[in-house]
């Protein structure tokens, strides 16, 4: 959980997603940003490597679930081979 007086998402949960597949990482990263914005989620961190996008995302749990499903499908011309999702219950995930 993220919790501080200045936190705009005081009730937010966070999850780390590792998405592996055959895709343009920049394209997939842009997709994750767009989806997060649509779902009012906060991307805490986002990194890419060839065939990999890793995102730490915070927000309402139900919306995190929608984000996960969207990323599992991905945008057009992207194939997701594997995806893991883990809850991050403390700042150690940051």
């Amino acid at each position: 959980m993220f919790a501080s007086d200045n936190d705009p998402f005081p009730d937010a949960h966070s999850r780390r997603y590792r998405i592996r597949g055959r895709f343009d990482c920049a394209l997939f990263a842009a997709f994750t940003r767009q989806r997060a914005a649509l779902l009012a989620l906060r991307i805490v961190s986002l990194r890419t490597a060839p065939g990999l996008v890793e995102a730490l995302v915070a927000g309402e749990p139900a919306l995190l679930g929608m984000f996960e499903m969207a990323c599992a499908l991905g945008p057009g011309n992207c194939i997701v081979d594997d995806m893991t999702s883990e809850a991050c219950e403390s700042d150690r995930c940051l």
Partner: protein
Amino acid sequence: MTMWHPVALGADIPAGTVAPVRLHGDEVVLWRDEAGILHAWEDRCPHRGMRLSFGFVRKGRLACLYHGWQFDGEGRCRHIPAHPDLSPPGTIRARTWRADEAHGFVWLAHDGSESLPAMKDGAFTAARSIAIESARGTVAAALGIGQDPVLSRDGLICAVHAADGETTMLHVAVANPADAADAALWAQRTRDSIERGEAVAWELHL
């Protein structure tokens, strides 16, 4: 400058119904709530991209057929059936177009802030919308419409818009309700004439 395009006959979208239209290749859903207010949005659910024109109207909202997400008249998502206790964030919303009605036609504008220009008063009865497999320029030239979106001639009110580069929609309304059936047939004859490259005959009653 705001460009307004006639895209449908208002009578073809009764209260509580949904209809798709295309304008210059853009897919737009028209829907009218139970109070009679017309809405125009991008024909794409922000959730999974399903055409919202497959959806249905319930209690002032348009519901997507796929997962039932409900959007209010402003395009904002208000209910997600899979998460009934969730208050959807304001970021989830359909992309809206500006819509208005005049001369019996539905008009759309994508950009700009100017209102639909005032038009000559008169009540018009919708007759027929029909697709013509010709570019808008060809159809407009055949009808003598030019760059104006609407032509009034011999009791007929004709409007055209480009659905895409190859298909043009012709919308026909009439000043005299008794002419509506003949005007609908005229629209068919006109489509056939234009697609065959023949001159348009303006005689309404054969």
